[in-house]
Structures are given as C-alpha cells and as structure tokens.
C-alpha cells in the first residue's frame, strides 16, 4: 500500500516537473535545457519575495511565476530566436544559459540547507492505512488541476488551439495566420511558468538546492523521452512508469538508485524504442 500511495505521488511530481519541458518541445520543437535552472530560480524567487521582501505567501508565488515566465520570454526573444532551426545550437545555448543561471545562483550564495519554503498546509492524514503529509495531497491535487486546465486550455481556447496547430503542422498553421514566433514565445513563457509552478509546489517538501536544477532537468528529459517527445499522454504515462520504478528501486535496492533509474530509462528507451512509448512514425524518422 505504501508503495502504491507514494508511487502515485512521486509520479505526479515527476509529471509536474516534465510538463513545462514537454509543452515547449511539443509546440515549438525547442529543447529547453534551461528547464531545471528555471525550476530552481522559481524556488529562490518565491523564497526571496517571502522572506526578504516580506510579501504574503499567496502573493509571493504568483509573482515568482510571473518572474519565471518573463525569464522564458527573455530566453526566447534574446537568444533562441536567433538560432532557431539549428538544433545543436539550441541545445548548447539553452544548456549554457541554464548552467549560467545555476552557477550564478550558487555564486550569489544560494547554497546550503538554509533555504526552505513553508508548506501550504501542515499535518498528515491516513490514506489507505499509510500516513501521508497533507502537502503531498496538495501536490496531487495541483497536479490533477494543472493537467485538467492545460487540457482545457489547449482544446477550448483560441490561443491553445493556435499552439496545437503550430505543433501539428507549422507551415499550414502559419498560412492560417498563426505567428510561429509568437506561439513559441507563449510556449516558453508557459513552459517556464509551469516549471516554476512545479517548483513552488514541490520544493516545500525539502530544501531548495542548486543541484536540484540538474536532477529536475534529467527527470524532465527522462519522462519526455520515455513518453515520446511532444506527446502529452505519453509523458503522463511515462511519469507513472518512472515514478513507480524509482519508488520500487529505492525501496528494494538503495536510495542512490533514484537517479540511476531515470538515466537508464532514457538510455534504454532511446536504444530499444526510439520513438518512446507513445511516439508516432514521424518522430521515429527524425530520431533514427
């Protein structure tokens, strides 16, 4: 029972981390390797707004999300727009930006165990005979809510439909008057804000550390690769596969395996099933 409950929570957490990455890649084919850095930045921003500026917590979080969205816009408008279409330049540039943000934060003194965010609700309850913090249930609720609203947004609003149009066939969408640069900017802003949302929801469970930037990036890539890049249903499914695999390996082997599982998932998927669990033929062609 414990494995089931914590497996589900871990999987939802992974899906939250990966959602922003898969959104950006799905819409505009931009691999945002600065994803992990944005995640950490959101954590530190809300910490700074809350502790340094003394803003109330419900105000600090939206401000931090706004800040991360602006970072996403800046990354696209200043850097990515100039190298778009050159895949390797996109990867190297975003990775370098992420590295610069993370190491800059580390240099600015954001290291050690002293940075924590308060939980939304304290206390714990019994779920199926397993004690669970209330905050972990909040994570679950936020996860479900975010998935539902993203689904609604992309299926029932004009902007969301434009994003899907660009994702499915860029040229046809552009002929219908959808601006590719605009949708890419929106996608990066939303993707970054989602990374920020994942951060403010998940970080109260532990400390904010710079190293999380690297592991979140790896988890996000793992989920996206296993699920098939750009496929959202696949990403959710993959989050559950990797989430349960992690919980099982940590429980029965050793705690170091948290990361090994994610890394092995990436390598094995790419070697044996390059298009991912949900990938389609078209994606297979560009990968292999």
């Amino acid at each position: 029972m414990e494995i089931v409950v914590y497996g589900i929570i871990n999987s939802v957490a992974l899906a939250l981390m990966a959602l922003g990455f898969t959104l950006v890649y799905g819409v505009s084919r931009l691999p945002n390797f600065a994803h992990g850095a944005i995640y950490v930045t959101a954590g530190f921003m809300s910490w700074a707004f809350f502790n340094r500026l003394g803003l109330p917590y419900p105000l600090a979080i939206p401000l931090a999300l706004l800040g991360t969205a602006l970072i996403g816009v800046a990354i696209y408008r200043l850097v990515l727009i100039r190298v778009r279409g050159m895949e390797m330049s996109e990867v190297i540039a975003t990775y370098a930006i992420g590295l610069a943000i993370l190491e800059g934060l580390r240099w600015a003194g954001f290291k050690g165990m002293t940075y924590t965010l308060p939980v939304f609700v304290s206390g714990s309850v019994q779920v199926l005979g397993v004690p669970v913090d209330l905050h972990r249930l909040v994570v679950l609720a936020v996860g479900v809510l975010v998935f539902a609203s993203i689904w609604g947004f992309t299926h029932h609003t004009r902007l969301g439909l434009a994003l899907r149009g660009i994702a499915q066939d860029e040229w046809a969408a552009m002929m219908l008057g959808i601006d590719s640069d605009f949708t890419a900017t929106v996608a990066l802003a939303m993707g970054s804000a989602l990374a920020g949302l994942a951060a403010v929801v998940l970080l109260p469970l532990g400390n904010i550390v710079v190293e999380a930037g690297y592991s979140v990036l790896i988890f996000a890539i793992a989920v996206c690769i296993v699920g098939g890049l750009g496929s959202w249903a696949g990403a959710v499914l993959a989050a559950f596969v990797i989430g349960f695999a992690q919980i099982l390996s940590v429980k029965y082997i050793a705690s170091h395996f948290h990361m090994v599982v994610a890394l092995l998932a990436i390598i094995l998927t790419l070697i044996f099933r390059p298009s991912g669990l949900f990938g389609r033929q078209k994606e297979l062609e560009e990968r292999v």
Partner: protein
Amino acid sequence: MGEALRKERLDRGIKVRTEGIYAISHWQEILYLLFPRLLLICGMLLLPVLFATAPYWQRVICVMSVFVLLAMAFDFMANIVGLVCLGGALFVGVGGYITALLNTVVGLPPVVSLPLATVGGAVFCTLVLLPTLPLRGIYFAIVTLMYPLVFSKIIEAFDLFGGTDGMPGVSPLPNQWTEQYLIIGVALLVLFGLRRLVNEDIGLVFRGIKDNDQAVRASGINITVFKALAVFLASMLGCFAGAYMAHLYMWAGLSLFALDFSIMPIAATVIGGGGTLVGAFTGSLILVPLSELLRAFGTLRIAFYALILTAFIVLKSEGLMVYAQRKYHQFERWVKV
C-alpha cells in the same frame, strides 16, 4: 537614395599560388604556408620553457593540452562526422579509471598502462556507445549527455573502485618535462594527423555521413562501421586525456566524470570555430588559461564561460579561427550592387 554597397571577398593572389606544387618555387609562398603552422608548433613547444620557473602555470599548460585533445575529439565527432557528443567526460572517466586499475591493482608502469588505457578505453567506449549510433541529432546528444552521469552514479551506488573516495596512489610520470612535452607532442600530432585524415577518402565518407547519411548508405557504405570508427578515434583521444590526467594528479575518481570535461571542450570548439580542428585547439588555448585566471571567482567562472559560449553561438557562430583564416586568405572590399 544612398548607393547600395555590398562586401566582396576575393582570395589573395598568394593563396591561389600556394595551392599547388608551385608553392615551393619561392620563399614567400613557402613562408605563407609555413608561418601559421610554425607559429603554433614553436609556440606550443616553447611554452614549458617560458614558464620553467612557474610550476603552477606548468600544470596549467598540461591541463590546457588535455582540453585541447578533448576539444579536438568533440570537433571531430560533431562537425565532421555529425555525432554531437555532449558527454566527453565519459571518455575521460573511462580512460582514467582503466589506467588507475592497471597501475595500482595490476602494477603496470605508466609506460604500459597509459597506452593500454588509451586503446582499451576506446574499445570500451565504442562498445558502450554502439547501440546509440543509429540515433541522430539531439537524441544522440541527450544519450551521450546521460552516459557520464550514469557511470558516476553507478560507481557511487555500488561503491565500485573506491566509490566516492576514488583510487589514490597512481604512479606519476617521471618528471615535469616529460609530463608537459608528452601531452603537447600528442596534441600537435593529433591536430595534424586528424587534419590529414579528414582530407583523405575516409574523411569524405565522414563528411558525407554528416551531410546526408542516407545517401552514403545508398552508395553501399555501411554507415554504422564508419560512425563506430569515428567514435573509436575520438574516444581514443578522450581516453588518453583521461589516463594522462590520472597519472598527472596521481588519482582517479568521480571528478573525472565531471561536467567540466564535457562543457569546456564544447565552449572551446564554438569559440575557436567548429569544423576546423585548429579552432578547437586555439579555443582551448584561450579558454583554459582564462578560466584559470578567473579561479578566484569560484563557481562564477562556469557561469562566465557559459555566457561566453551563448554569446558566441548567438552573435559570432563562425568562431575565431574561421574568421582569422578568412582574413589571412582573402581580402574584402565594398562594391556597388
């Protein structure tokens, strides 16, 4: 209405004259060809002598040459064969650990363990990367980025080869002169060797794989064999660099799989100019001493060279050496459209 002008580039006369065998007909032509090459060779050979009184900078020269090798390996794989390998640290780590095992456990001297680690490590890396070779572009990049992480995590998780403490007691190279001239000599040999190689027939196949692998396949050439060969060559450079590092620091540990060995060569290649090999070489010559000077800033230097890297990719993607070569071989003038 102002006149519309555009820049026209023309080859210098001397460049055209030095392209054939007649280059040897006059000392000016010979000098035109030899000057850049001799400048690099003599400069590199003189470096240890110039810094003879500064042991710290002699160590920097060694590290710099190590990164020269890694950058050339990255440049060769990425810009000539088209396999963008973000995990150069894999080669370094494998080479370092193999030489440390051979040296401390089996007891072989560096003269034997260094070459053995180079070739053995290259075979190992090629076998490990073999299943990933069908992948293209960003997917190959992601897998290779993960490999060094997996290896270091596995070593940590199973507590192999000394776990997080690493393996101390690797025997050092005889003296500081051998240390420096060994790696400088290898770096120069590799530069000119690889340059010769990519201009041979096999280099044509490599470039073909980069530009259009299906066309190469249609010509009846097995691309996997050639990709594996390219990986073998590049990992040989990387493994030698790693094995050399282990002997230099008399220690092999998890830090051999560190991000530095993957990122710095990429930055050097981008700054120097991809696809020229000598660009990767000079890029490292600039970047490594620079990062050594910035050591006082701690981790900020990583942020600093990440920013340089981004700026070069966005604003000056051709790189310094391509620019310099253009200026050397061509002159420019404004002409009316």
